[in-house]
């Protein structure tokens, strides 16, 4: 009854054509594109890794095998925990966290400048400069980074001719190339939510604070940052989630000794052909990321609705 009346109200408000289009589009989006695939992955993660003929057979039962494997490793291994995979997992999350912080520090001043110095033609050009590089696809961008960060890449060459260093720095092995690549890849996702919020901040508030004697850092600390918090958290959430889940950049720019957790997932799906285990690993990554984001939001008193800003 209640749902029916909500439905009727919705159709009345938007008319039959638009109303049913909206319902079908949103329904398709939600159910076919989001809920069903994730549910099937969840289902997969609890199944045994079986050859195709045995699927649906008597051996096809639910199990925690794959989750156990991530935590404890293969049975009979000489360590009681899966040190390798868990190590990669933690390292991935820590690295994603630092990429997020790096992006935040880089982007906040830029977003502030864009948002508050706006009105001039410069800002539009600057925004264009930020957007256009994203027309270049991810693979090309990653390989280009590999080249300029390489032993004989532009950066090493330049520093050597300037006499700053004697031997080339191995940016790839030290993961500097990876962090730069990831940081760069998500800069826009950090800038735009912050820019949107800061742009709507009344300039007079900044001037009022200045009039009362506040130095620039206090103006940011007390006025701009609290106001921009929804944008900051929205940007950080996206950058964190996407860097933790990135695949191309770690594949191409990562050092030989450092795996990204997504690479392990990819290996299970692809080389190992073990989809259930891949699914279990991916679901653990997703769940832990969500828990981290939610706890951070709680810590900084951000409401869920703010993220949408």
């Amino acid at each position: 009854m209640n749902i029916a009346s909500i439905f009727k109200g919705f159709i009345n408000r938007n008319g039959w054509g638009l109303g049913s289009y909206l319902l079908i589009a949103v329904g398709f989006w939600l159910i076919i594109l989001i809920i069903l695939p994730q549910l099937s992955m969840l289902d997969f993660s609890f199944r045994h890794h079986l050859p195709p003929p045995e699927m649906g057979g008597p051996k096809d039962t639910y199990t925690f095998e794959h989750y156990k494997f991530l935590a404890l490793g293969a049975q009979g291994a000489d360590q009681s925990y899966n040190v390798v995979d868990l190590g990669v997992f933690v390292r991935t999350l820590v690295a994603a966290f630092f990429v997020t912080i790096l992006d935040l520090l880089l982007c906040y001043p830029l977003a502030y400048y864009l948002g508050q110095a706006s009105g001039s033609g410069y800002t539009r050009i600057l925004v264009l400069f930020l957007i256009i590089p994203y027309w270049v696809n991810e693979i090309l961008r990653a390989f280009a980074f590999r080249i300029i960060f390489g032993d004989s890449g532009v950066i090493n060459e330049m520093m050597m001719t300037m006499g700053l260093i004697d031997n080339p720095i191995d940016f790839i092995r030290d993961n500097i190339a990876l962090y730069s690549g990831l940081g760069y890849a998500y800069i826009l996702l950090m800038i735009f939510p912050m820019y949107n919020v800061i742009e709507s901040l009344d300039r007079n508030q900044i001037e009022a604070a200045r009039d009362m004697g506040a130095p620039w850092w206090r103006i940011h600390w007390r006025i701009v940052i609290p106001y921009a918090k929804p944008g900051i958290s929205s940007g950080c959430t996206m950058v964190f989630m996407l860097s933790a889940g990135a695949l191309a950049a770690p594949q191409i720019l990562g050092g030989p000794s450092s795996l990204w957790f997504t690479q392990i997932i990819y290996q299970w799906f692809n080389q190992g052909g073990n989809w259930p285990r891949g699914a279990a690993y991916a679901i653990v990554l997703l769940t832990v990321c969500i828990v981290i984001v939610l706890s951070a939001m709680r810590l900084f008193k951000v409401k869920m609705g703010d993220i949408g800003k």
Partner: protein
Amino acid sequence: MSKGVGVNLQDVWIRFGEFVAVREANVDIEGGAFFSFLGPSGCGKTTILRSVSGFLEPSQGKVLIGGNDMAGIGPNKRPTALIFQNLALFPLMKVWENIAFSLEVQGVGTAARRKRADELLEMIALTGQGDKLPSELSGGQKQRVAIARALCAEPDVLLLDEPLSALDLKLRQHMRTELREIQQRVGITFIYITHDQGEALTMSDHVAVMKAGVIDQIADGQTIYDDPSTAFVASFVGENNVFRGKVKSIDGDSALISTNRSGDLISRIPAGAKGKLAVGDDAMMFIRPEALNIAGTKTPANNHITALVLNEEFEGQTFNVFLEGDGGKEMKMSLVNQGKARQSAKGSSLTLEYAADQAVALPAGELASE
């Protein structure tokens, strides 16, 4: 009461590119005075105020506060506090934090800040409301919080940019009195900006009337009203009936103007226009609606005007008569209601008279558009 800190503008020009927003402003504001800038929208009032508060350096000329040249001194270092046109309260801080923000900047501890904020809250009659957010206050309350926040910094000069414009009429009138009282209590210099002449006249010791970047006249309210020095001031401040014509003769303080439609009319030359009118010049003569009366005798004289009555309007304390006036505009006469039934004269001609010293003759010039 302390003498307060004076503010002087010396030959201040402010340009934005080619555009001149303020032209040759010379203003001397006494310490402890309530000084208003009055002018229509876009005439440069906010711009002048920003040059006093330090957000804008004049392109030319000097701003002195307490006799010190303020060139190169930023807004956070000047002894001024600005109340913004839109108040600019900090929406995410509690009311008391807003009020005590200037103390927070100075590094005063929480308890002392809270105490000072509570004192100020008491002064603005908002005791106990310190823990609310600004969005939980009414318009007039926000207004008072903005004043308290500015006063908390203990400025020598308080700058107010049309702080009452967002309020409804009743509240605005109430806040006028309140502002004036606060000013007299704290005894500091107030520089007040408004486009509302009623506000300027009721509150200020002195008023500067501005038109398109130029200050036309600086005087006390009564002088501005009774002895305007330009046609713009005469038409902008209060209601006025204008008569265009040429100067026919001048005799000391009085001038005979031969008007386009009402014959030769006698009027007074106010102090500010002395020496600026010569025989044969284009002139404008202004008579206030309340200075007009129905003529006792019908003998034509140089203080009689005959015109057709177009409309009449009863307004309680006054009875307004609208007559055919100069240049397509209506001429208005306000008669005090003396409680007697009045006979309508609509559609017929009336002869009006005025006292010669109630009419002012000024050089022809631009009129206020309202």
